[in-house]
């Protein structure tokens, strides 16, 4: 038993000593705590990774407890920055007020919710937003493809979508049904989109929705459904999401910054660095950057709250 303790102690000490030493002398220290959406996570992770190279003494940590879970921590002052794939909701705003948390919302990238089908699906090349609503609304009577359009096959339709903890779920239901959280419940609710990708890939009668990056990475295995909101069919792509042609399923990805935290120099530098590098890094991890003017606006908004304080 003694030996066991010694071995584990050595592991602990070795770990503590092995940390990479910074080769540049910098003044900024401290720590920045980020949590929230798993969708925004890759962007914040990428920024934190690059930030480490220029400010090695600032400890930036990023978690992914979901947009809702992240806001719970943010509203109680546990985190400095909250990643969110949807806007903050009424209850969460109230909780922030109760705890005296003031914040600023910054848009860091764009994403398109993509409706996907099996590669062998030859019929569903596009759908109108009304058809999507009919398919996904609570107590939907659509069971077969020909319940949507008479000329589509008389086959049962198998649905995949995110479970209720995802911001993607809130956003899709809000845009299509007009009410956040309003959805039929008899579908395969996944927590991991790769499960949905696998399910749809193997089932010719499957349909699902998730973020554009999961489609882009699996283009050879999946088919995409164009969205018609009354002004013609639009396919999701980096261009159509960036110029908001892909409506209404283009969405913004946000970070919420605690105003009190923003008074700290390391947080200020991190946010400036974030906004300056988001165009490149968000694209690298599979999202769509805003036009540069969009980022300029975010920088301006952030600088304004700094001046006010």
């Amino acid at each position, binding site marked *: 038993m003694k030996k066991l303790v010694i071995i*584990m*102690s050595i592991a602990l000490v070795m*770990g503590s000593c*092995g940390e990479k030493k910074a080769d540049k002398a910098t003044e900024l220290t401290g720590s920045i705590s980020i949590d929230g959406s798993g969708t925004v996570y890759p962007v914040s992770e990428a920024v934190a*990774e690059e930030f480490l190279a220029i400010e090695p003494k600032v*400890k930036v940590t990023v978690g992914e407890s979901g947009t809702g879970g992240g806001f719970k921590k943010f509203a109680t002052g546990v985190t400095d920055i909250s990643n969110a794939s949807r806007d903050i909701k009424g209850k969460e705003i109230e909780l922030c007020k109760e705890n005296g948390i003031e914040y600023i919302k910054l848009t860091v990238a764009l994403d398109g919710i993509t409706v996907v089908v099996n590669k062998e699906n030859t019929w569903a090349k596009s759908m109108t937003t009304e058809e999507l609503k009919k398919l996904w609304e609570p107590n939907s009577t659509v069971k077969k493809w020909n319940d949507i359009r008479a000329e589509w096959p008389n086959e049962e339709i198998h649905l995949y979508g995110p479970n209720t903890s995802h911001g993607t779920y809130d956003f899709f239901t809000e845009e299509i049904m007009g009410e956040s959280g309003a959805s039929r419940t008899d579908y395969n609710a996944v927590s991991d989109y790769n499960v949905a990708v696998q399910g749809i890939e193997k089932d010719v009668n499957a349909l699902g929705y998730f973020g554009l*990056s999961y489609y882009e990475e699996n283009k050879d295995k999946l088919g995409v459904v164009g969205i018609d909101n009354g002004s013609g069919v639009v396919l999701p792509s980096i261009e159509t999401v960036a110029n908001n042609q892909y409506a209404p399923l283009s969405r913004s990805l946000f970070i919420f910054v605690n105003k009190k935290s923003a008074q700290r120099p390391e947080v200020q530098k991190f946010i400036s660095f974030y906004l300056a590098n988001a165009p490149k890094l968000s694209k690298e991890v599979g999202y769509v950057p805003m036009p540069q003017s969009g980022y300029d606006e975010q920088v301006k908004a952030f600088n304004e709250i700094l001046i006010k304080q």
Partner: protein
Amino acid sequence: MNNHKKNKYIDQSFKVLGILFTMLGIFILGVLIYNIVIAGFTRINWDFLTSLPSRKPERAGIYTAIIGTLDLMLLTVLFAIPIGVGAGIYLEEYAKKSKFSSILEINISNLAGVPSIIYGLLGLGIFVRFFGFGGSILSGSLTLSLLILPIIIVATREAIKAVPHSLKEASYGLGASKWQTIKNVVLPSSFGGILTGIILSLSRAIGETAPLIVVGAMAYVPFVPHSIFDTYSVLPMQIFSWTTRPQQGFAIAAAGAIIVLLIITFVMNGIAVYFRNKWQKRLK
């Protein structure tokens, strides 16, 4: 068929059934390990073990997650073993058989079956918020300790129960006190069983993700903890984070991390089994 033949027949078929069931477990483990090794073995190299997490799957490593896992396990062992074994000894040796103690007994057994996320919520309420430990490695290890305590207590009690009564009586007969008997007779002869319980409970704790997400384990932590109040990541957290990413490269990295986690579990169990065998030899 006469009775004797029939019994022999039943005996044989039960044996075959038993072998089949054993093989089933091994087969499933085999398939799992095979799949993971095929997917992730090439990914494991020194860089993978010593690099920080990254957005680029081919550059991403599990250094902080490995250290986080080892630290977390060490702290969990330090908290859970004394409390768990102590409680087991009390319940088995000191507690009088009363209604209260049987209610306690049932509750502890029930606790062993509570879903781990519930312990996470409990840890969030008590350690993170009430005691104000925040999302630290201390909160994480205390939560995991709660999670494995029931298993250790139950295992300790069963191991103590198995100590022959005659041994204890002999000790008392020589004039030894209760504590002397526990220290010199009961604990040494039940040590193997207690250790088995500890191994099982740690194997459960090392793979936990859900309660740790709740009490604040992070996915991206580019430094190792220096104190028990530092933020941390663990291997299951890193694996979870990678398996949900769209890029195929992260699936391979996740497989690599799973192999490392399996190796750590095997080594941990190996060390415990080694001590158990050595102990049993000494007893004889």
